[in-house]
């Protein structure tokens, strides 16, 4: 628990048939930080992400969580250790109500998830806690709404509530503001800030204004390899980053998207 870095990768490599998507990535995510992984399209951000959450198997290298090697563990196993991810497309259970969505997550701690002989009424004791989580992301009015009927931004908020229900130590967010309008983006930024209290967050994000507002540390990837790392100031001043992002050194890295 006391280790300085929650998550660490060593020489992480992923090759797809003669193409190296992730090339010797060493990543260190400090406890309590909001850490961003940025880079131009095709830089391998999502691949790194999928490696970390075991949706892909690394070709070489090591992944450590609290100094423990988790390279060979499965997705569900690392989720139980406290690493919870989000997805690019909002990950909700569409034909369940918002309340039920959160309850599915809470249910894992009950140890009743294989109990097929019990009534689902036994889950009602989780309702208050689920509701409190919905309230924390501003969805209290929609507790009984079937999720398909929620707007995109609200689905993402619901996803976050579900993630928080797992009381994760490390949250991995895959482009949390992708495809959102301004208002939704601001709301999600606030939600992430709130969620980060007492937790560590690693996020892939395109929107640099979001990164500048939220993140303590930024790793820039290009062509599968780490280009540089630092805080927003350092990274945005770095000429190599500007070139990789803008194609030329001339423009300053603006916080726009």
């Amino acid at each position, binding site marked *: 628990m006391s280790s300085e870095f929650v998550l660490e990768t060593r020489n992480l490599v992923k090759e797809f048939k003669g193409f190296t998507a992730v090339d010797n990535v060493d990543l260190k995510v400090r406890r309590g930080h909001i850490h961003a992984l940025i880079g131009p399209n095709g830089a391998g951000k999502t691949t790194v992400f999928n490696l970390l959450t075991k949706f892909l198997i690394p070709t070489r290298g090591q992944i450590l969580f609290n100094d423990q090697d988790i390279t060979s563990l499965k997705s569900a196993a690392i989720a139980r250790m406290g690493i919870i991810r989000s997805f690019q497309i909002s990950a909700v259970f569409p034909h369940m109500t918002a309340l039920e969505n959160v309850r599915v997550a809470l249910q894992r701690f009950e140890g009743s998830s294989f109990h097929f002989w019990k009534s689902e009424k036994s889950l009602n004791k989780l309702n208050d806690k689920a509701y409190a989580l919905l309230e924390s992301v501003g969805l*209290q009015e929609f507790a009984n709404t079937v999720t398909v009927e929620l707007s995109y931004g609200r689905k993402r908020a619901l996803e976050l509530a579900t993630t928080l229900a797992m009381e994760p130590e490390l949250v991995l967010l895959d482009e949390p503001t992708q495809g959102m309008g301004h208002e939704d983006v601001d709301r999600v930024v606030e939600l992430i800030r709130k969620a980060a209290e007492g937790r560590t967050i690693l996020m892939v994000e395109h929107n640099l204004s979001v990164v500048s507002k939220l993140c303590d540390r930024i790793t820039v990837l290009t062509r599968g390899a780490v280009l540089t790392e630092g805080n927003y100031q350092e990274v945005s001043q770095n000429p190599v980053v500007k070139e990789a992002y803008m194609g030329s050194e001339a423009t300053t890295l603006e916080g726009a998207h």
Partner: protein
Amino acid sequence: MMTPISENTATKRYVENALRSERRHFKIYAVLLLLALVAPFVVYPVFLMKILCFALFAVAFNLLLGYVGLLSFGHAAFLATGGYTTGYLLSTYSGFSTELAILLATAASTLLGLLFGVLAIRRQGIYFAMITLALAQLVFFFYLQSPFTGGEDGMHGIPRGALLGFIDLQNNLMMYYFVLAVFVFGFGLVRRIVHSPYGQILKAIKENEPRATSLGYNVDQYKLVAFVVSAGLAGLAGSVKTIVFQLASLNDAHWHMSGEVVLMTLLGGVGTLLGPVIGAAFVVSLEHQLAQSALGNWVNVILGIIFIVCVLTFRAGIVGEFQKFFKKNFR
């Protein structure tokens, strides 16, 4: 809780909604059960028993397709295993207890389900369907070649025996009520599973499997349990069917049967509890009517056309469409 009245109202409303829909369902079940109890005095009991056996088979299949989203194309293997095991036990050992034969047959299908499940569950979609089909074909050829099944002739004259040693099952009415009891048990079990804490996880897996995984659920294990239960219930249906007709035939093991149960389930309404029951009743009745008419040879063609019409126009199936209509107009 210090805060909001709203907290109480939202969760209270949730609990109330669930209760209301449960009550409505139980009213429907009560009416149907009442009809089923008086039906043998109006309709030929053997025909009704056929419907109940297939309905149980379809209900078992729907647990997988409707509530886990797994399309098994090998369920005939479980139906047949239930049937042949029962037939073998009852005709080989004279005086073998009927209820024990049913239990053992169900256990045999459950075990076979475990074997199928372990091999197939890691795959999804069409691959899952194909693996179950391939395994079921192996089982078909096993039954075709094995001496004890009578090959293409099947097993005939299987004694029905007496239930618990004193309820004579030769009496069609007794037999009918026994089959009805078995069906109610199977239906009740599936209903319980669907509306259980475990059922919620199944629903989550069906809705968004990667997300369920990322919440820490080992989805393969959950699917496997459902697969095994479904196989066991299909075996139970096969076993009872064999006792009703005193006959176990290769038809039950044929892939046609796996297809027919898909048809029954889709036609009735996949993912609804009563859908497969209505679907089975519809298909069995239709086959029965056609077999007696001049169109006897056209059964498959007519079923095929009905299937196409169903998929094109009322995709949710009979019960599914009815539910939609009800939701739109009465709530």
